[in-house]
């Protein structure tokens, strides 16, 4: 193998961290969804790395599952975004704070 597994996992961790930061700090709902996608990708990378390390296809199978789930999530999430935009004319997530005391 070309690089040690640690580096792969480290890369995945870094990407995940970036995704977290994006999800926490950005206020544009769409960008938040993107950040979530980024996190999912980080997880996928970890899966692939491990599945390569142990020569076990299971990890890649689960990557496929994750991709499917991501697609579903995006479809629904963007649907929500659209209806949200229709109602509030904004994609600022802090606009959507009705459900509180």
């Amino acid at each position, binding site marked *: 193998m070309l690089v040690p597994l640690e580096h792969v996992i480290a890369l995945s961790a870094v990407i995940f961290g970036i995704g*977290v930061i994006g999800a926490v*700090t950005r206020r544009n709902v769409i960008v*938040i969804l993107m950040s979530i996608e980024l996190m999912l990708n980080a997880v996928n990378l970890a899966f692939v790395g491990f599945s390569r390390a142990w020569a076990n296809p299971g990890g890649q199978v689960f990557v496929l599952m994750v991709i499917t789930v991501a697609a579903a999530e995006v479809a629904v999430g963007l649907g929500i975004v659209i209806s949200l935009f229709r109602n509030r004319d904004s994609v600022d997530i*802090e606009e*959507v*704070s009705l*459900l*509180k*005391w």
Partner: protein
Amino acid sequence: MVDTAAAATDTTLLRWIPFLPLAAAAVHGVLLGLVRRPLSRRGTIFLSCGAVLASFLISLFAFAELLGPEGPRVRVDNLYTWIGAGKFSAEASFLLDPISAVMILVVTFVGFLIHVYSIGYMDDDHRDDKGFQRFFCYLNLFTFSMLMLVLGDNLLVMFLGWEGVGLCSYLLIGFWYSDRWNAYCGMKAFLVNRIGDFGFLVGIFILFWALADVGKPTVAFREIAAAFPQIADRMVTLPAWLGGAQWKLATLVGLCFFLGACGKSAQIPLYVWLPDAMAGPTPVSALIHAATMVTAGVYMVCRLSFLYAAAPGASAVIAWTGAITAIFAATIAITQTDIKKVLAYSTVSQLGYMFLAAGCGGYAAALFHLATHAFFKALLFLGAGAVILAMHHEQDTDKMGGLARAIPRTRWVFLIGVLAISGIPPFSGFFSKDEILLTAFGAQSIPGNTWLYAIGVVTAALTSLYMFRLYFRTFHGATRLAPENFRRVHEPTETVRYPLYVLAAFSLLAGFVGFPQVYGDWLGIPDSNSLAHFLAPVLAGGVHDPGVSHGEELRLALFAICAATGGLLVAWWLYLRSPELPGRIMQSFHAFWRLLHEKYFVDEVYDALFVRPTVWISDRVFFRFIDAGLIDGIAVNGAAHGVQALAARGLKYAQSGLTQSYLFLMILGTVAIVGWLLR
């Protein structure tokens, strides 16, 4: 001693005996409870009676199978492992040995007859449309439970049936629940039985604890019997709050089990529920509260005979309790006027006889009397039921008299029953009661066994006295009915009458299965007491030898006959010859008469001692203070109010509605966990 722990033939026949009635009951229950479409009368009859008849036939077959080959007469039908925990495993399995064979025959046969009888008896019950099917549903359920009880291979299955019959008795006593009094009686029966069941359970626990202590954790009868000698003689120290005395384990366990028997079989001090149980329909009184369920205690004592044989103390207690109960109930019965009450007290008294025999070691005698009593007492109850039907649900003998002309058939069968219970030869009661008295007379191991015998004889005299009193007051003398009512008295229908005939035949002949050896020697019949020999292999002590010479035995029998006839004559003199006499006696001994008539005020005493304090405590302390005050007030509502206040003060501000703050908190938690895991 039972040595058949290993030698048992497997069979798959037995399971059908209890399960057919269960299936019938289940069908009824589903139709009534879920589908809510009651079956037609014909269908109900066919289903229930058919199920019981089938299980009776199967029982006959199994019995024949059992009689066939010599050797260990034990059949086991193992369904599955009910409870398996480590070394301990309780099988859901049925055991057929001579004891349970006799029991299932009695149960299914009498049960079937009473099912048939109920067709006619419940026919005029129009209190609610579903009543008919509901009644048969309960009857089938009872039959199932009773069969579980007698067929159970281990204490747990037996206990299952034990509770089941208790439940069914509750349901059937309060069958006409619209009447508060019936509901109350059912409740009373249930609660009093609970006390007994408690004793039973404690017995099981102690026994199991001791067996596990010697490395044989089991509840199966035969294994217990095999392992019992190891633990029979060890001493148990009661906890300090029970006096901390040293008890022999066998005695302790035996007494615990006997407490259960007292509850189920209505012995002092727990007999009070049985007379009130007469609130149920008469077939119920006949089946449950005379023939089968109340004898469960006797059955249990015989089933555990190996235990009681090793516990003379417990046996003495049983014998004395039985004797005292017998005479006690008999004296009460003398003054009762309600036809069913009289029979109820006589049942208590006869059960006392059985325990007397069992306590004195005559387990075969006890079972013998159990069987005969099942027949003639069922006969008496059903006859009483016929009378009650004829009288249009009038039970008070003060309003009867001279019915012999109106309902001759009923009168004759009833007479047979009376003769049988009074112990007039050659009716079945004579043989069984005689054997019991003999056993009591010969039981040297029991302190004061001669007194037991004396009590037995006196009770026999009293028995024939009150039974003939009942008979004369019901069927003879001048009628106390208004003429137009008297004209409306009529014979019951066939389905009511034919069971009476069959039972009459059996109460006439059933005695000969236990034909004493004395007369057997006259007629040159070896082993004439076939029942005893049949039961011998599974009973402690085998064929019980009272150790009384033949001449002595004959003299005792003569004595008993004299006592019975004496009672008969007294009754005849008092209630036919000079009917005004009882009134005068009542006047002169009024206080004593009242004492008897009010059943020694036992109910009142119990009410004052136990019921009222319990009710007071549970109402004032447990309900109003603990439940309503502490639990509802402080725990439940208090917690709710506290949480509400907390949330309203500060917690709600955490609910900012900002999705990202939630997300942030989530990440906070995750990071914390990860950090802690990786620390």
